[in-house]
């Protein structure tokens, strides 16, 4: 089993604030890595660095063994291999659901409009959204919008999917419909890195759970180990607070 993603001693700061501190992480093919931790612990920044939306200050990031933090690399080529889904969906409001999904396949991968449309419709039917194809995003519920955003990122057949707190803006019923897609993708063998606050869900899909605190991974291991028998006192403290909030 090869490693899809590897981070070596990654460091990133915004001004004086150190957000990622000497962080290393390996994500093998077909596995799901779940990042947990309080807001501001560096989860989103980690994902944005992998997607080259942020430039790291030090260290290296490898995708399929190739260093993507080389400044001479074509960032568009790298991003084509990565799918990213955001907390705030970020669908294009001026395009229909179908146009949102087919934009990248047509413009980036050079597929014909017909081919892209057929593929997009197949994905939409698979996730029970076929009847929404010609709607504009603002006519959809939050859960539907986020499912479309996931489908949009899938349409370019990414090597790795980055999911940044994709359920944080949704109510509990909608959370479930979004997470069931992620479970399906996990079943397909998609390699994923997720930042999430849904601990129950993390238990279901995670091959590895990493607890981030102040830009570093303090504890990592199976979901069972990290979420139910944490050894690090800070992880214990964090999970206790999550538990008190009724989220575990």
């Amino acid at each position, binding site marked *: 089993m090869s490693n899809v993603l590897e981070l070596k001693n990654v460091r990133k700061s915004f001004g004086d604030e150190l957000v990622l501190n000497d962080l290393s992480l390996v994500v093998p093919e077909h596995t799901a890595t779940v990042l947990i931790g309080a807001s501001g612990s560096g989860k989103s920044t980690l994902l944005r660095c992998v997607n080259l939306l942020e430039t790291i200050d030090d260290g290296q990031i490898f995708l399929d063994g190739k260093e993507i933090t080389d400044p001479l690399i074509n960032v*568009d*080529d790298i991003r084509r291999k990565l799918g*990213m889904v*955001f907390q705030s969906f970020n669908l294009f409001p*001026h395009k229909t659901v179908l146009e949102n999904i087919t934009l*990248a396949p047509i*413009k*980036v991968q050079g597929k014909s409009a017909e081919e892209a449309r057929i593929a997009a419709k197949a994905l939409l039917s698979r996730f029970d959204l076929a009847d929404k194809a010609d709607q504009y995003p603002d006519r959809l519920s939050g859960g539907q919008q986020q499912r479309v955003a996931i489908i*949009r*990122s899938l349409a370019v057949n990414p090597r790795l999917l980055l999911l940044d707190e994709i359920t944080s803006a949704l109510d509990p019923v909608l959370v479930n419909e979004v997470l069931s897609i992620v479970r399906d993708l996990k079943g397909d063998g998609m390699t994923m890195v997720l930042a999430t606050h849904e601990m129950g869900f993390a238990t279901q899909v995670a091959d590895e759970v990493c607890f981030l605190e102040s830009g570093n991974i303090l504890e990592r291991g199976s979901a069972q180990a990290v979420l139910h028998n944490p050894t690090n006192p800070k992880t214990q403290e964090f999970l206790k607070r999550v538990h008190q909030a009724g989220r575990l």
Partner: protein
Amino acid sequence: MTERNNSAWSPSSRELERQGSRRAINRKQVIIAAVSSLLVLGTLALVLVTSPGWQSVKSTFFDIEYGKEVLPTVIKGLWINLQLTFMGGAAIGVIALGLALLRTTKSPTLTPFRFLATAYVDIFRGAPLILIILLVGFGVPALGLKGISSNVIFLGTVAVVLTYSAYVAEVIRSGILSIHPSQRAAARSLGLSSGQTMRYVVLPQAIRRVVPPLLNDFVSLLKDTGLVSILGVTDAVRAAQINAAVPLITRHMLWQQFYFYSSLFQ
């Protein structure tokens, strides 16, 4: 699902009562609006008509006979006006979009052009339209360059286009900047290049957002193309050869403008 059907509903007596009261309130408001409008507008009209100079103002500006007489000429002028507006508008759209894109680009190759675009906008936005019209309309033919049209209508329109492009560029730029960075991040994370992101994601949303201010500019363009007529109907080349034909005020305004810029850039 329960059936949602409104046909079986008939309003209760309380609801009928409420509808009656609303109608009564409406009637009262219409009467108040009518009376107050009559009062205010009537007073204004009275002040105007009873003013001591009204008769001479009326015969100078509002002579109906004269209005009938010039109607054909005005319609002919209006036709030219419309043509200039639409042709000029198209040119303004293209130039302004180019300027706005240059001003928002981060590409290092385009850095000098970004500075030029900024300077262009600052200069043309700061100058009165009438000055640019006089300068282009009389100045360009006076240069005596070969191959440049000396048609006053053409030159006047060029002047209008130069000035309006600066204004419209800023409107479009404000639209571009108003699009949330997350839209760009989403597009880039799908693998779209920065050019594709601008073309397919940012610009379509930006333009939609600035349609109302663009309509403002379009309406004032329609009015300002009329200013081209100050260049007169004489051939501008000949007019320029006769020094006196260049209004003294142009030279005066030019220096005024120069001092204005110097004070701005200090």
